[in-house]
């Protein structure tokens, strides 16, 4: 072992790395918001039991959960590209992550919905609430509590998964690290440093999640 660490070039590029970390966080958060909305819809479609649409939800969920996330990303990049739809690297990653999140979250939501007794819905309707009001005010808030921790995990997963963006030319944290490291040849230092940033990001997310849960779920 006669490798000598040189941290100075890495430290000098810290602002660039932190900026890239923000890009990572942004795309992860956005992909979660989109994933939650689509995941809810997929779960409801799947539970509706209408054959004409169930296959669509089941197909989405199966592909998202049983194929490599990288291939899902490539689909939105090279796959759509082959048909003449060219997305920016940012959009490729956002679409890929959202697709993946939606598939995983849909199954979580489905479990959540099944855990809410039918009588909650009946009670809501008996008060004159419409089906939409019953879902929005009574069912979905309870489902969110049940899926809250799986959802937090998915958020962490989205942050880590976004590093695949490097392979489609997206300059998020890993892509940026790769770009900077290739110019200085301090590759090991850069990636160690970046790993620490990821670790910090995840810890911040977990902490924030706990704080939000404490504020939100008083019951």
């Amino acid at each position: 072992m006669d490798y000598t660490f040189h941290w100075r070039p890495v430290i000098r590029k810290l602002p660039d790395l932190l900026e890239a970390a923000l890009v990572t966080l942004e795309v992860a958060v956005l992909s979660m918001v989109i994933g939650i909305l689509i995941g809810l819809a997929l779960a409801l479609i799947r539970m509706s039991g209408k054959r004409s649409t169930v296959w669509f939800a089941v197909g989405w969920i199966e592909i998202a959960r049983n194929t490599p996330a990288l291939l899902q990303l490539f689909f939105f990049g090279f796959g759509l590209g082959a048909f003449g739809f060219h997305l920016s690297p940012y959009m490729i990653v956002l679409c890929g992550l959202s697709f993946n999140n939606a598939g995983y979250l849909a199954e979580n939501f489905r479990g959540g919905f099944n855990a809410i007794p039918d009588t909650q819905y009946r009670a809501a309707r008996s008060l004159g609430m419409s089906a939409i009001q019953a879902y929005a005010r009574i069912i979905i808030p309870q489902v969110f509590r049940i899926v809250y921790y799986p959802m937090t995990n998915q958020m962490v997963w989205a942050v880590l998964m976004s590093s695949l963006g490097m392979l489609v030319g997206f300059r998020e944290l890993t892509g940026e690290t790769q770009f900077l490291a290739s110019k200085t040849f301090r590759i090991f230092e850069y990636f160690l440093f970046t790993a620490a940033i990821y670790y910090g990001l995840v810890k911040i997310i977990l902490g924030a999640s706990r704080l939000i849960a404490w504020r939100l779920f008083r019951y």
Partner: protein
Amino acid sequence: MIEIEGVRKSFGPLEVLRGIDLTVRNGEVISIIGASGSGKSTLLYCINGLESIQGGRILVDGEDVHGRDTNLNRLRQRLGMVFQQWNSFPHLTALENVALAPRIVKGKSRAEAREIARAQLEHVGLGDKLDVYPSKLSGGQQQRLAIARALAMEPDYMLFDEATSALDPELVGEVLDTMRLLANEGATMICVTHEMGFARDVSDRVAFVDEGRIEEIGPPSQIFGAAQSEKTQRFLAKVR
């Protein structure tokens, strides 16, 4: 007035209601008794349109519950319902449980809805539990909360589906007392119940349901004193 005429209801091949006729006048308290599985809950669900029917019709103040053009969400505001499983909304405080529907269904302001909720919770003896979550309430308190929640919509009719049968014995009394209070205030009530004492003391008429039909209906003195149907007599002998 609730008019039930020849109502039939099936779940697949299973015919649960086989022609029910019953008229409930305003101010009347009707108890429905009968064996488990005889279709009592199903009848209540049909009255407020939570279940469809396959024959006959149900009119609430002349409005056909299962009519094509009936606005069920509006109709249900006149039909309060309390279920067997106390199903308060666990993510809302007692006050929010009661205030929610007046606000989002009836369009009351937040302040108005809270005032209604506070009054109804006091009405059922939960005035000191406004900001408590249901998980911190006993079964009896949760059931009274459910009653307050239904009353907050100012319904013309109250449907009770075995409001006490999921409760520990020592909690039954407080819920029955609340129901008695409503009856004395002149509420129109249909109560499915296993509490024969309540049925005898509080109701104007008692209906004995057997295999999806009303086997016998009459004042409590008739049903509990001089039942004409042998089936009624046999049922009452068993539950006593």
